[in-house]
């Protein structure tokens, strides 16, 4: 199959690599060493592989690598470059929002993309917004509490 040269900015750093027309962004990222992007189902069902593409949280397993050509991608490893990313990371630890940790990167990225758009949502809105990301361990409460704590902090600052 034909190889395409693509270029993207991942976590703020330029990456030039080759891909094929049918390669998912998930496979592309993991093949290039971004193992923090986890694979849960490869069918777009669980949200484990979520990354932020051009400011939007997407499931990288059902996004083609070619769709990210000349675009900006953020994984969990890039989150410490943002104040909001760091706050979410700290809040997840503080609230015990993590158990096995496999869904955690996706959850934090979905939360980051959402809070960027809507910095002070209530718990109900957060609950609805992250419904596409599944977690088998936590029962979601502490994840929602952790995101809400960051939203509360945003509220105080506004």
């Amino acid at each position, binding site marked *: 199959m034909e190889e395409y040269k693509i270029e993207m900015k991942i976590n703020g750093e330029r990456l030039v690599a080759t891909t094929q027309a049918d390669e998912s962004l998930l496979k592309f990222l993991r093949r290039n060493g971004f*193992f*923090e992007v*986890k*694979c*849960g*189902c*490869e*069918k777009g*069902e*669980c949200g*484990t592989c979520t990354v932020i593409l051009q400011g939007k949280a997407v499931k990288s397993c059902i996004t083609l690598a070619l769709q990210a050509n000349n675009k900006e991608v953020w*994984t*969990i*490893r890039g*989150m*410490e470059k943002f104040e909001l990313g760091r706050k*979410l*990371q*700290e809040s*997840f*630890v*503080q*609230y*015990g*929002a*993590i*158990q*096995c*940790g*496999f*869904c*955690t*990167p996706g959850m*934090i990225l979905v939360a980051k993309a959402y809070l960027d758009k809507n910095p002070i949502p209530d*718990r*109900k809105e957060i*609950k*609805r917004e*992250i*419904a*596409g990301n*599944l*977690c*088998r*361990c*936590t*029962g*979601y*409460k*502490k994840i*929602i*509490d952790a995101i809400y704590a960051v939203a509360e902090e945003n509220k105080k600052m506004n």
Partner: protein
Amino acid sequence: MEKEQYDFIGQPLEIKNIGKVTGKELYSSDINIPGQLYAVILRSPHAHAEIKKVDYSEAVKVGAVCIGPQDVPEIIYNERIVSIPEKTYRDRTVLPKEKVRHKGEALVACAAETEEKAWAALQKIKIEWGKQWKPLLTLEKALSDDAPPIYDWVYLGEEKLKVKNNIACERNIEVGDVEEGFREADIVIEKTFHTQRVYHMQFETKSAVCVPEADGGITVWTTSQGIHNVRILLGNIFNLPLSKINIKRITLGGSFGSSIQMNSITPICVALALKAKKPVKLVSSREDDFYDHAKYPLKTILKVGVKKDGTFTAAHCRVWVEIGGHNIQAYPYLGCVAGWFASLYKWKNIKYEGTAVYTNKVPTCAMQGYGNPQINFAVESMIDILAEELKMDPINLRLKNYVGKGDEFWGQGPTVRSIIRSCGVEEMLLEGAKLAQWEKRVPHYQKKEVIRKGMGVARGFHTSGTGGPNPGEVIDYSGATIKINEDGSVDVLTALMDLGGGTWDALAKIVAEVLKVPFEKIGIYNGIDTRSTVFDVNTHATRGVYCGGGAVKFVAEKVKEILLNYAATLFKDLPENLVLSCNKELGQAIIYPREIPENYKTIGEIAEYAHTTSWGTLAYTSTLRQKNCPPCFITHFVEVEVNTRTGEVKIPRVVIMGDSGTIINPNLWEGQIIGAFSRGLGFGLLEETDYHPEDGSLRCKGLVTDYKIPTTLEMPKIEDIIVRSAHTYEPTGPFGAKGIGEAALSSVGPAIANAIYNAIGIRFYELPITPEKILKSLQEKEENLRKRRGE
């Protein structure tokens, strides 16, 4: 309750999770070795068929390394070696030799330079099938006289047994005289209950990476709840000395019991790596994983005798479990179901008959509770049925008969029992009732709305570990090496796994508490393997904190003794005159002669002195077997809203009371309870692995959304998930602690069923209680009413 002031126990500190929020945590599928091959598996398209010939020569021609039935060792094993060998049934080889026994059973594996090349090679494999049978997918079909045998014979220990009527094993237990007990009863009720097959849906699919080493040995990273058992099994299967096998302890992306046994893909990966003489990586697809493991279903016929005052006189419990194509642990499972049943209430006389039956479905294994949620559904539904018959409050009937302090608890079937020394059952039922506003509960016949509210209660428990005063049929011990490093920080080397519940943090806190070394200076998280650790049986049976924590506490106390003895020589004093405490400003443990704190030395100074004077390392290694199996208790008060037009059930509010003795990680304790509630909600209302009746395939086809696990939207209102702890102290546990993990799920299903009954007056005897079942029952109820009115 004894009250102690702790420096670290019960503090909301979590270290493990920093790797998980930064993306630095590695799981088996993240391990990569230069030059590795990627493996994929060809799975059986048939549910029950004879394998005549496997020809992978065309796959080899395109560069793949392959293994088929002809290549794997003849060793017949059981992948779960937690029970003693003479009580372990063995029926499988690495790949099936003569026939496949369920659709999706691994049959041939290929490894190539890329996964794509491996898949391409896989397409070239030719299988010649012999006789094929219609799959046996239900208990009734598998037990029928004309059913084809799934096995002709299996092994129990070293004994070769003929399999009759597809019965994998049986277990019958009698205590007292049930017939006499039923004669004493005023009311006798018998009901049949069914719980379904559930898929674990752990987020990380089963994975392995195997490196063949220069000395002929292997190094393996794999999804496992117990690395030492994986090593013992691989040594046995591949005839390698254990000293040449090293299994790395690596974080698990969830498991819920599905990696107590060595996962089926692990020896496949090893066999490929040994044949290829190259590192091999094997990561299951989600569909592969769906075809690999499931929760045991259960059919229960329960008959209970009770006097008018609510005293039980006898219980007869008959259970059947269809286990699928392999017997992973059905014999201990039947024993455990008996134990959970016997330990819930004082039945006085009991008779238990358990039968496990082979079918042509995915092999079943433990999943959070090992039969406990299944039998709890029958018993806790029955208690409500009896309470209504007796016109008693369901809480009072429970309080009158529960097994509690001073009574005997069967922690792991009939052979592992100990006396209950801490029990929060009464507190949890009474306090929970207040929080849930139980007194406002209205009987179902007063409800006429379209959306009807109801409230239900159920209680349960699980064992903490599988220890008893006498070792029973289950192997249970843990161990550790603990060393004070040259700067006063501490390394804890234990093989015990953390499944995500916070076990490693809990163990670190226990060591910190004994040695008074700040929690942050305890190294427990990385760099552990079978070679560097003594044996630990497994993180199963809710034993992590109680047994694993008990073992590290024991070893840490030995290190403390060594430290104080050595320090005494420096202080020119007796060890009993020295005080060890934590100085949080210095970030160090300090030692000083009693009453003279200003003369302290930090243990960093002491350890450094031991090092520079070549005295040696302050360290100790040992193992410990806990000699009790204390139950951790749970109580669920669930509120439901049943929509009588759509059959949908919503859970707006839940009150959960837990009894774990001292709580070591408060945040994660609560998190485990809420997580278990979500899985219980799936078990109660949503989840079932449904099979195609003709070909034995999974109807969800490996798709998560077709299978359906709870999302955020199915959970109660976040503010209305209320979790509280009982005030108890377990005298045999580390700092008074017991477990929580599996207990937390045990009574969710019946609490939901009891709440639905309270809402609409319909009793469900089968899980999951789907909208379809509710609508059908409502229609039937309506029709019966009409008939009765003569319409």
